[in-house]
C-alpha cells in the first residue's frame, strides 16, 4: 500500500523544564534541511515573524534534530512549524508525532522570573504540529476555583512580580471601561493570593446579559494589571477541559472559564436561559 503522504513529516518533540524544545524528524533527502517556525498572523495579515533552526543528524537512527533554546523567548501567539528542505525550497507543514510534555505537568510549582515565557507544543484542529507561546512581564497562575451558591473564589499565584499592600484584583467588563476592584487575600510570601467575587460584583446595572469579565491582578496600587490565567502546565487548549459550574443568583448565572488564550474570564448570562459552556 502507499503510506500517508505526510508520514515522513511526523515530528516528535520533547520539552525540558527550562522550555527547551527538541524536535526529531525522520531523515529525508534534503541536503540542508531547516525547521521553520512562523508566528501565525491574524487572518488576512502578512506573516512577520519567522525563526529558522538547523536540522542536524542525531545519534540514533539517522533522525534529524533541531533544538529551540529557551532564549530568546518567543513572541506570544501560535507558531506553525514547517520543514524547509533547502533555503529556497517550498516549505512543508509538519504533522505531530509523540509530544513528550511530562515535565510541564507540575510547572506551576516553580516560581518564574520576569518575563514569564511559556511554550506548549500542541496539535491544531486540522491536525498539524504547532507551538503555543506566551510571553508576559508577569503572570498570575490559577490553582483552584471554588464555586458555591454564594460566591466564587479563585486561588492563584503571581509569577514575575510581587504582591504589595495595595494590591487589587480587577475585573474588566470586556468591550467597555467598566471595572470592579476586589480586595485579594495575600499570602505571607507575597506571591500566593485569592479573591472572592459574589453576585453583586458580577451583575448589577452596568452588566447586562451575555457580558464577560476578564480578570487581572494589580500587584501594587499603581502597578499595571497582570492577567490571571492558567498557563503553567501541559494543556494548550483548556477551554473545554477545565469546565466550572455557574454561580446562580439574582436572575443571573456567572460561570468562570478559560478563554482560547487560557486566560480567566467570567461569563454572566440570564439564569433562565439554558447554559451552554461551549
Amino acid at each position, binding site marked *: *500500500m502507499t503510506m500517508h503522504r505526510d508520514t515522513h513529516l511526523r515530528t516528535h518533540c520533547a520539552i525540558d523544564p527550562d522550555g527547551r524544545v527538541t524536535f526529531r524528524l525522520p531523515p529525508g533527502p534534503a541536503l540542508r534541511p531547516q525547521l521553520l517556525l512562523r508566528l501565525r498572523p491574524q487572518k488576512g495579515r502578512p506573516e512577520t515573524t519567522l525563526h529558522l533552526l538547523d536540522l542536524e543528524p542525531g545519534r540514533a537512527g539517522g533522525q534529524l534534530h533541531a533544538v529551540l533554546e529557551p532564549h530568546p523567548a518567543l513572541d506570544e501567539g501560535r507558531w506553525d512549524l514547517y520543514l524547509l528542505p533547502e533555503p529556497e525550497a517550498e516549505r512543508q507543514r509538519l504533522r505531530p508525532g509523540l509530544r513528550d510534555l*511530562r515535565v510541564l505537568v507540575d510547572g506551576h510549582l516553580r516560581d518564574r522570573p520576569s518575563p514569564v515565557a511559556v511554550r506548549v507544543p500542541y496539535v491544531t484542529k486540522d491536525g498539524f504540529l504547532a507551538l503555543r507561546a506566551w510571553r508576559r512581564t508577569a503572570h498570575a497562575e490559577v490553582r483552584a476555583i471554588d*464555586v458555591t451558591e454564594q460566591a466564587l473564589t479563585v486561588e492563584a499565584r503571581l509569577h514575575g512580580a510581587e504582591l504589595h499592600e495595595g494590591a487589587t484584583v480587577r475585573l474588566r467588563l470586556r468591550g467597555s471601561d467598566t471595572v470592579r476592584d476586589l480586595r485579594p487575600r495575600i499570602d505571607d510570601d507575597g506571591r500566593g493570593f485569592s479573591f472572592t467575587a459574589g453576585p453583586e460584583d458580577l451583575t448589577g446595572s452596568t452588566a447586562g446579559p451575555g457580558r464577560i469579565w476578564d480578570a487581572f491582578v494589580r500587584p501594587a496600587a499603581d502597578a499595571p494589571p497582570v492577567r490571571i490565567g492558567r498557563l503553567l502546565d501541559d494543556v494548550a487548549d483548556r477551554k473545554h477541559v477545565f*469546565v466550572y459550574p455557574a454561580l446562580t443568583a439574582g436572575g443571573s448565572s456567572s460561570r468562570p472559564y478559560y478563554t482560547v488564550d487560557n486566560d480567566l474570564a467570567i461569563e454572566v448570562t440570564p439564569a433562565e436561559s439554558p447554559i451552554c459552556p461551549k
Partner: protein
Amino acid sequence: MVGAVYATMKISFLIHNAYGIGGTITTTFNLAGALAERHDVEIVSALRHREHPHLVLDPRVRLRALVDLRKEADHPLHQRPAKVFPAAEYRHRQYSELTDQRIGEWLEALDTDVVIGTRPGLNVHIARQAPQRVLRVGQEHLTLDNHPPGLRTALRRAYRRLDVITTVTEADAAAYRRKMWLPGVHVEALPNSVPDPALSPADGTAKIVIAAGRLVPVKRYDLLIEAFAQVAAAFPDWQLRIYGKGEEEPRLRELIERLRLWNNVFLMGAATPMEAEWAKGSIGAAASDFEPFGMTIVEAMRCGLPVVSTDCPYGPGEIIQDGADGRLVPVKDADALASALLELVGDDERRRRMGRTALDNARRFAPGPVVAQAERLLEKALTTRTTGRRTTTLPDHRTSGALTGRGHAARDAAHAAAVGALRAIRKGR
C-alpha cells in the same frame, strides 16, 4: 518449536474497515506488521470510505478493499440485505448482497496459506466460503458469552468449519471449548499486542491518575469519578484525567460538578496516540463492568504505570497480577476502587515499585512474544492439517463428530512426528 526458523507463509487478514479507528484495527495492524517481518501479509478490508487509513500500517503489508463506499454506496446490490454475513451480527446493516458477493469471490480465489477473519460475521464468511486448501482462522475480539443468542447459534453452526479460533483471553477460549461443539477446531487464546513504547517510561512522580477509552456506560467512568472523590479529599493535589469521547460525556460532566471535583477530574477529549499521555501519569485506572481484553491496561503498563482495575470479565484478571503490578478490585464497588487507588497514591515507594514491575510484566504483550505465539499457532495448525490429511482416510475430519476425540489424538501424535514436514510439502506447491 521455540527458536525454529519458520517457513514463509502467505497470510491474508479480512477486516471490516481498515480505514476507521478502533481496537481491532489497531491490533490487526500491529499483528500484520509484525508478521510481515518474515511472511507475506495482506489486509483485505471489506469496506472502505476514505483514501488513507487513519492508523499507520507497516509499508510491507499490502492493503486493499473489496467494496469502496465512496463509489459504490449506491450500487443496487448494496441496497439488499446480506445473506452470508449473519443477520444477528452487530454490523449486519453495513453488509449487503454486494459484500456477500465480493467477499465470496475473493475467498474462492484465495491463493494464500492462511486467512484470518477479525470479527464474527467475517469469520462466518471464511468458514462457509474459503477453500479447504487454505488454513481458516477466526479471531474473536469480543467474547462468546456476550454475543446475542442468535449470533451464537449462527457461529455454532459455521465455526465447525474453521481450523483455528483465537480469543483474546484464556477465559473466552475456555468458554468456546465448553459451550461450542467444535470437533477438530483448535481454540487458543492469543492476546492483543501493544508496540514497544518510544518514550521513556513514567517515573511515578506525577500526581496524575489516567484512564482512557470511549465514554460509554460499560466503562463505568462514573464509578471511577465517584471513587476518585475519596482520593481528591485526602490528596487534593492529585488529578484524574479521562481521555476519550462518547455519549456519557454530559453525564460525567454533571457528576464531576455534583461531586465538586472540577479542580481534580478532567475530561481530556480523545488523544491518539495515548503514549505521551500515559507517560504523564503515575497510575492507570479502569472501572469497566465488562472488558473483552483491556488494551488500555496493557498500554498503561507498557509505559510503566501500575493499573488499578475492576476484576471484570474477562481481560483485566489475565493482565494484572494483583498486588504486584496493579490492583484488582470487585466490579461496581466505588469504595474498593477508592481504597486501591489510595493505597498507591499514598505510598510513593510502593507505586514506583509496582510501576517497574508493570513494565517488566507487560513485556509479554510486546509484538515479539505475541507474534511468535501466532506463528507457532499457525505453523502447528498447518502441519497438523497437512499430516492429518496424509494419515487419515476421512474425507473431512472436521465434520466427522463421532471421530473427534480420535481426531485430536491422531493429530497430536502426528504433530510430534511431523514437525518439519510442512516446509518440504509446501515447497513442492
